[in-house]
């Protein structure tokens, strides 16, 4: 049986991959990365091959993944906070730390020497572009409404728009079943938890860049360090993900959602 698909459009990253590893980013060909002119906003879409228990389980598994990812983000933030470029640049650090510290050292070098060569200037231009692109994407994430769509067997059954102040508007297809409703509610939760996780990523990256700026005296300050810190945090998250054994979806979470389904179904619907 085909699996449910999860797509996210209106947002991109330097690596063109969802940092959470859940959503397939839909990069519009007419909207190049960092252009920021796609006005459709942020759209999360979940397509289920069937309205079934498998679809429900897939959604729950993804939500558990977001939850786990946020814990990993906490760990990354702690490692970032503990990083001290002023004490040692090379010794006693793992690979992600070493890479970040090397980038910091490279960015610091003009302070030591004003003889900036052509290659160094080009490298700086690239870093500036990356930082600028990242900021534009961050801006998109907070500027646009969130829209979540659920489809079953290719037919859209529900759409929810969430504006910046949290107002919800949900449109249901006439005849949507209780099962459809339950799946869409879970999709809304998953999408908004994903957005929250990305916002926390921004928060960790920006505050981490600020902290390192203060420690390392990088010309260009926090903004220049954004790409390096972003890449560092992504590396840590990947490293933690590799270390983590695959876990089944927690039963506690499932139990909660099952109670929600019983609710949604209403008396006698038997869903």
């Amino acid at each position, binding site marked *: 049986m085909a699996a449910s698909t999860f797509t996210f459009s209106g947002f991109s990253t330097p690596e063109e991959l969802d940092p959470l590893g859940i959503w397939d980013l839909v990069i519009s060909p007419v909207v190049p990365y960092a252009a920021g002119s796609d006005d459709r906003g942020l759209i999360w879409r979940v397509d289920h091959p069937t309205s079934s228990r498998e679809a429900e389980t897939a959604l729950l598994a993804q939500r558990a993944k977001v939850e786990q990812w946020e814990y990993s983000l906490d760990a990354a933030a702690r490692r970032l906070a503990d990083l001290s470029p002023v004490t040692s640049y090379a010794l006693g650090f793992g690979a992600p730390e070493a890479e970040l510290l090397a980038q910091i050292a490279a960015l610091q070098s003009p302070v030591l020497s004003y003889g900036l060569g052509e290659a160094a200037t080009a490298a700086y231009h690239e870093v500036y572009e990356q930082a600028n692109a990242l900021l534009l994407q961050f801006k998109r994430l907070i*500027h646009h409404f969130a829209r979540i769509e659920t489809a079953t067997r290719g037919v859209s059954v529900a759409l929810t728009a969430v504006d910046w102040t949290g107002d919800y508007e949900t449109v249901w297809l006439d005849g949507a079943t*209780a099962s459809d409703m339950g799946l869409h509610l879970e999709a809304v939760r998953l999408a908004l938890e994903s957005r929250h996780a990305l916002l926390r990523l921004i928060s960790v990256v920006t505050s981490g860049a600020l902290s390192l*700026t203060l420690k390392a005296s990088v010309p260009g300050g926090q903004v220049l360090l954004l790409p390096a810190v972003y890449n560092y945090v992504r590396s840590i998250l990947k490293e933690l993900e590799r270390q983590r054994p695959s876990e089944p979806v927690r039963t506690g979470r499932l139990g909660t959602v099952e109670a929600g389904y019983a*609710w949604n179904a209403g008396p006698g619907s038997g869903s």
Partner: protein
Amino acid sequence: MSDALKGTSEALYTSDLVFNGVNAVTGDYGQPPLSPRTLARLIRGEPFPQDYREFVDRQRLLSGLTTVEERLTRVTDAQVELRATEDKVRRDELRRKAREWGVYPVKPGAGDPANVADVGWAAVFPAEMHPRLREEIKEALRPLFDLRRTQAGEFFRLYEGGDAYRPGERKDQFLERLGVGPGLVDPREMPFYVLLVGTPAQIPYGFQYQLDVMRGVGRLDFGSDVDAYDRYARAVVAAEVNRSHGGTVPRRAAFFAPMNPGDKATKLSAQYLVQPLYENLSQQTIGNDLALSVPWEVGTPIVGEKLATRVRLEALLGGDPAQTPALLFAACHGLEFPAGHPAQLRQQGALLCQDWPGQGRDVAREHYFAGEDIADSADLQGMIAFFFACYGAGTPELDQFAAQAFKVREKIAPQAFTAALPQQLLAHGALAVLGHVERAWGYSFISPSGQLEHQSFITAMRTLMNGGPVGLATDASFNMRYAEMSSDLSADLEELRWDPSHLDDYELAHRWTANNDARSYVVLGDPAARFTLVQEAAEPKQREDVGTITRSEPRSEPPQVPEPEIQEPEEPAPTEDSAKAGVGTVQFAASQAAAGPSTPLRGQPMPRPWAGAALRPHGHERLATEPATRVAVLDADAAVAFGLGDQFNRLRDSLRSFTDQLATSLGRAAQDIITLDVKTYSTKDIAAVAAALDARNEVDANLRALTRVAFDGDLQVYVPETSAGDRQSGNVDLALWEIHRSMVEEAQHSRARFLATMAELATRLLDSLQIGS
């Protein structure tokens, strides 16, 4: 039952019920008096409109005294269901306990629950605690950890990092994640004695209550005051080590009970709690109560006019060493402040003394005793205090009273916190404080039939007086009572849904009150802490100096407590920084050097890599010392000098644009936050709706339901009808209604979380712009 008590009991049931707290701002009762019938309706979740108005209007009046944001948190049906599930779990635990008879509360064969070596000891840290602070606290608590590790051996655990308590986790989730099953404690899975280290905002009281049902649980919360953790750890270790070497504190118990003029609550607690307790505890053996293994000097209760004064309480709490007892029981009003009041964190739960002239009269500062009134020189080493008072141990964030009735819980504090008075006691050498979280009801020690119900108090006090660990003292008393009450109440409420005559209003009010009361007793301090008793000690020794722990004279017989083995620390050579580490560090190191080989504090100074940090505020010390302004200057100069000025300016503009966007959106949100709208539509073509949204055109869909939640909790609800045909009948489309309600709950949860994250992000960005511009 005596006639006097019977008369009092009857009077209670024909008049309003009074809580044991006084509002410091109004001088009135913190909780308005309620009739038993009103209370019963609230407990059932079936209030009359006038009940709602009376209760909420009062709360709003109080809340209006200060400005507090985000006062309301809704309780959803799902949470109500969750509570029912938790009640069922508790019932199941009790049933299992009845089947598996053994040495409650540990599994048969596990050994003596009073012995840490048999049942283990653990500390739980919150995942939310900053790692640096956690390490500092661990280092400060190291003497205590070393002692417990030596006693508990393989049953010593630290739950931190991946095993830490995670935000929002329920007890059952926490245990399940750690592979611990419900029921009697198996120390191999998780120790019996559990110390929670952190604030109740980090590890909620609700978690503590539930974990406490089957375990001996205490909490240590000094915020980021690492020195206080250090002092406390050394005090507990000194007490237990002295125990093994003949040292002890005077075995003297004192009772303190004001009876404020015209005040029913304090009159009841003085006459029907303190006096019977005194009469019971002043006898070494009585009936089938636990016999006292050593004689105690139980002082005549300090009750009422001219006696239970603030001056006297100050003397009892270290102001006069000759009057300071080992065991203090105080029953009085605890002070309550409106949420967010400037004095709330410092003074809520302070003990209101006889000096207060009574209900409705102004509460003056000289009427109550707060944590800040503990003298710096106060020596409370070895003391255990028991405060029967509203908020005496702490305050939760949300009102625990209104949940069932209104599905709206008022914020009674900006965040949950530990009361300052017990914190100060522990920081001055006290071993533990037992107290009440939230409001205590003075009515709970008398049953509806007029029977005194203070067996829990007697059992707890006698266990303590026999040298039992404080976590065990509450386990066989209040925790058991809570488990039973909760089980009964849960069953009764379920039955009442179908049979309104199952329980009368008075009985229901009593059961609810007793359940709430028993649940909310907590231990502050190490749950394995205990009095240092030496049977043959005719003249107890003087208290040890907490600040400078020195070696005690060894006894001739072997020590009763196993000696902890301190690992030889891999301490680097002392540095200049460590030399500047402050008085506490230096004294500790010196005392260890003097401790000699037979104490657990022997050996080299404890390694304290954070030496010096304790003398400065935690959290932003690095920011305060790093050259932020130098960075700002370098930014612009460096960029221009390298020929990258345009690019740099563009980048900075991007950051500004991003931050402006954030600020604009937050500002808009602040304007629109007054209401939250959740709308539900139906349509024949979702794709057409999506296309219309993309094109910003009018959407063709039928509005089926609308909920508007106002900031003050008011609701406007429009419900969906099934179909055009059914509109005549007014039938509601239940399926659509249920999903709409779910969306409302989701919207409320999501908005709160989203705005909090955005506000944090905005703050950080604005900080960075200040530095970068």
